C-alpha cells in the first residue's frame, strides 16, 4: 500500500550528477541555517531579555537590527537548498507538503508577519520606545515556522506515515522524534545566537564601546549559549534514541562515514560546554569567546552532515531499484557557475565599498 502511494520517479533525466546536487544542497543549506539560527535564536533571546535589565535594550536593538538583514538572507539562501533538494527528492517532498498543505502555505504567512513585526520592533526601538509585544509575536511566528519545517521534514522521509496523515493532518505531529528534533533545532539556534551576541559585544567593547552594557550583553549571550548547550546534549541523546530502530541500527553500522561526523559533533558539543563554563568575564576572555563562536559553527556543519545521512537512511528502503538517468546540461551548468561567481564577487565588492567608503572632510555624503 505504502509503495503504491509513492509517486513515480520523474521521467526527465537529472540535469547534473547527483553528487553535485548533494554538495550544492549541503553548502547552501549550511549558509541558510546560519542565518535561520540568527533569526530564530536572536528573536527568542531578544524577547526573553528584559528591557529594564542592564544591556537589555542594546541586546534587543542588536538582534532586531541584524535580523532586518538576516531574515532576507535566510529567505534568499533558503531558495537554493529547496531547489536542489527538489531535484533529488521532489516526489517525497511534494507529497509531504501536499498532505499538510495549509501548514506549508501558512509558513509563508508566518514568515511575512514575523518579518514585518521585526521591522515594527526596529522602528519602535529607534523611536526610543521598547520592542514590546511585536518582538514576542515575531518569536512565536518563527517558532511556528520551525515546527512546520520539522514536521514536513520528518514526513517526507517516512512514506509509511502518509496515509495516516492524509486521514488527519494532526498526525504529522505524532512522530516520536518530532519534539526532540524541534528542540534540537531551537536550542542550536539559541546557542549560536548567544555566542554571536557575546562575540559582537566583546568586539564592541574592545573598540571602545561602553564596557558596562557590552559586558552585560556578553554575559547574557554566554549564559544563554551555556544553558542551551547543556540542554542540547540531553536532547541530542533523546533524539538519537527516538530514531526508528532500523534507522538507528543502519546509522550505527554505517562505519566511519556516519560515525565520524556524529562523534566529532558530540565531542564538539562537549568541548563547547567546557569552553562556555570557563568564561566568567567575557570581556576579559575575548579569545575564548571567539573560539566558542567558531566551534559552534563547526558543530552545526557536522550536524548538518549527520542530518543528511539520516535522511538517506530513512528513505533507503523506498528508493531501492531507483533508476536515475543523468543527462548533464553542461552549458546551463556553466552559466550557473559563471553567474554565481560573478554575483557573489559583485556582492562582496559592494559590501566592502559600502563599509569602507566614507566622505572626506567637507565632502558631501549620498
Amino acid at each position, binding site marked *: 500500500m505504502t509503495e503504491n*502511494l509513492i509517486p513515480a520517479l520523474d521521467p526527465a533525466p537529472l540535469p547534473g550528477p547527483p553528487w553535485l546536487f548533494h554538495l550544492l544542497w549541503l553548502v547552501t543549506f549550511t549558509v541558510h541555517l546560519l542565518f535561520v539560527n540568527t533569526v530564530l535564536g536572536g528573536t527568542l533571546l531578544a524577547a526573553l531579555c528584559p528591557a529594564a535589565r542592564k544591556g537589555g535594550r542594546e541586546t534587543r536593538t542588536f538582534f532586531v537590527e541584524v535580523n*532586518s538583514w538576516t531574515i*532576507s538572507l535566510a529567505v534568499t539562501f533558503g*531558495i537554493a537548498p529547496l531547489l536542489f533538494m527538489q531535484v533529488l527528492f*521532489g516526489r517525497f517532498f511534494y507529497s509531504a507538503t501536499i498532505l499538510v498543505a495549509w501548514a506549508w502555505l501558512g509558513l509563508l504567512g508566518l514568515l511575512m508577519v514575523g518579518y514585518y513585526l521585526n521591522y515594527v520592533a526596529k522602528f519602535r526601538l529607534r523611536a526610543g520606545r521598547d520592542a514590546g509585544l511585536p518582538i514576542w509575536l515575531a518569536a512565536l511566528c518563527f517558532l511556528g515556522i520551525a515546527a512546520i519545517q520539522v514536521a514536513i521534514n520528518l514526513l517526507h522521509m517516512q512514506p509509511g506515515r502518509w496515509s495516516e496523515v*492524509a486521514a488527519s493532518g494532526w498526525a504529522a505531529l505524532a512522530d516520536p522524534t518530532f519534539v526532540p528534533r524541534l528542540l534540537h533545532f531551537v536550542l542550536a539556534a539559541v546557542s549560536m545566537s548567544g555566542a554571536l551576541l557575546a562575540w559582537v559585544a566583546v568586539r564592541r567593547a574592545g573598540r571602545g564601546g561602553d564596557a558596562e552594557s557590552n559586558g552585560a550583553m556578553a554575559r547574557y549571550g554566554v549564559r544563554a549559549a551555556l544553558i542551551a548547550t547543556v540542554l542540547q546534549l540531553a536532547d541530542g541523546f533523546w533524539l538519537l534514541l527516538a530514531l526508528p530502530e532500523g534507522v538507528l541500527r543502519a546509522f550505527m553500522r554505517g562505519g566511519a562515514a556516519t560515525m565520524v561526523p556524529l562523534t566529532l559533533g558530540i565531542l564538539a558539543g562537549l568541548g563547547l560546554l567546557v569552553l562556555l563554563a570557563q568564561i566568567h568575564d567575557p570581556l576579559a576572555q575575548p579569545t575564548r569567546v571567539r573560539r566558542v563562536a567558531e566551534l559552534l559553527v563547526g558543530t552545526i556543519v557536522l550536524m548538518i552532515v549527520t542530518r543528511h545521512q539520516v535522511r538517506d537512511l530513512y528513505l533507503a528502503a523506498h528508493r531501492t531499484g531507483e533508476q536515475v538517468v543523468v543527462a548533464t546540461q553542461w552549458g*546551463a*551548468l556553466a552559466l550557473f557557475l559563471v553567474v554565481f561567481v560573478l554575483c557573489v564577487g559583485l556582492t562582496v565588492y*559592494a559590501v566592502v565599498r*559600502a563599509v569602507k567608503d566614507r566622505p572626506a572632510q567637507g565632502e558631501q555624503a549620498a
Partner: protein
Amino acid sequence: MDYPIWDLAMGGGILIGLVAITHVWVSHFAIGGGLAIAITETLAVRRGDPALRELAKRSSLMLILISTVFGAISGVGIWVTIGLVQPAATSALIHTYVWGWASEWGFFILEIVTALLYYATWEKVRPRTHLLIIWLYFFAAFMSLVIIQGILAFMLTPGRWLETGSFWDGFFNPSYLPGVVLRTGICLLLAGAYMTFAALRERDAAARTRLVRLMAAFQVIGALVAYGGYRWWEAALPVSVKSLFAGEKPILAALSGTRTFLLWSLLAFLVIALFALLAPKAQRWPIAVVGLLAAFAFFGGYERLREGARKPFVIRDHMFSNGVLISEIESLNQRGILAKAGWAAFGTTADPVGRGRAVFRAQCASCHTLDGYLGIRALVEPVDADMLNGILTIMREEGAEYVSGRYTHKGHVATENLDYPHMPPLVGTEEEVEALHSYLMSLKAAQVAAVR
C-alpha cells in the same frame, strides 16, 4: 497525478493566480523601481537637485519593504503554491530548468544585498558609491527577469525543446523575447505609477511638478513599450493558442473578454499618464490611484490571459493540466489511470461510483471542484446519461489526436480542431470511463434524491 490531491474549494488554479499576480505586481515594481530610483539619484547628483534626492530616498524605503520582504516571500510563495497544486509540472520544470533557477538565485543574492545596502548607506557613503550600489541592484533585478522569463515563456511555447529536449531551445523559445520587452515596459510603467505617490509628497510646488512629470515619462514610455511587447507576444503565439482568445470566434469567451479588458486598461493607463505628463500641476492622489489600478488591471489581465492560454496544457504540447503526459496516453489507456494515480483512489470505495470518483480526482480535480470553482455537479446537472456517455467517448477518442500530432518548432497539436480544445483528453481503460460515468451521474440531484 500520482501525487496526493489537495482538495481546495476555490480551485488550485485560482490560488496560483492570486499568489502569482500579487507577486508580479510587486516584483516588477522592484525592477522598474530600481531603474527609476537609479536614474532619479543620478540626476540628483548631476544637477545638485535636493528634491530628486529626497524622492530617491523616500522611494528606497518602500523598495526594501516591498521588494526584500513581500517580493521575496511571495516569490517563494509561487513555488510553494505550484508545488501543492501542480507537483508533477513543478518537478518537470525543476528537472529541466534547475540551472536556470539557480542562476536567477545568483542574481537574487546580489539584488537583495544591494537593496538592503542602498537603504542603509544613505548619508554614510559618497554619492558615487551609493549610485554604484543602486545600479548594481537594478542590473541584478533585471537579469532575474531575463532568466525567469525564459522559464515562464517555455511553458506556453516550448518551441524546439519538444524535439531536442535542449535547455537552450526551451529557454529561447518563440515568446521569450516578446515577453522580455512586454515585462520591461510593465516594470517601467509600474515604477512610474508607484513612485508618483512619493513625488506627490514633495511640499515645494515647483519641485513636485518636476518630479510628477519625470514619473509620468516613465509611465508613458512603459505603456508604449508594454503595448509593443504585447502585440509582438500575441504575434509569436501558435494559431492553436491564439484561437482560444483571439480571432472572430474565440474558443473561450472569458479569456477573450480578459484580452479586451487588459487592452482597455492599458489605454486608460496611457491616457492618465499623458495627462500627468502634460499637466503635472493638476496631478492628484485620486488620479494616481486610478492610474495604479489601471496598471494592475492591465498586468493582472495579461497574467491571467497567459496562464489561461496554456489550456489544456500546463507545458504546451507536453504535459496536460492534470499532469498526464502526451507520451503516456496510450500506456494509460492500456493499464488504466488508477494504476498510476494511487492517491486518487485513496479513501474511495471499490464499487463503480467509488472508482469513478477516483478517476475524477485523478484527471479532473486539477481544474474542477465538486461544488466550488468550475463545480462539476452544476455542470452535469443538465446532461442526461446518453449525452454524458457521448461526451466522455469523444474526450477519450481525442487522446488519439494528441498521440498522432506532429510537432515542429512552428506547428503544434491543432487543439482548435478538437471538440474540447481546452480540456485534456480522457485517458484510462473502458471500465474506468464507465466508472467515471457512474460517478458523474450519481452527482445529479435526481440521483441523490433517489438514494436518499
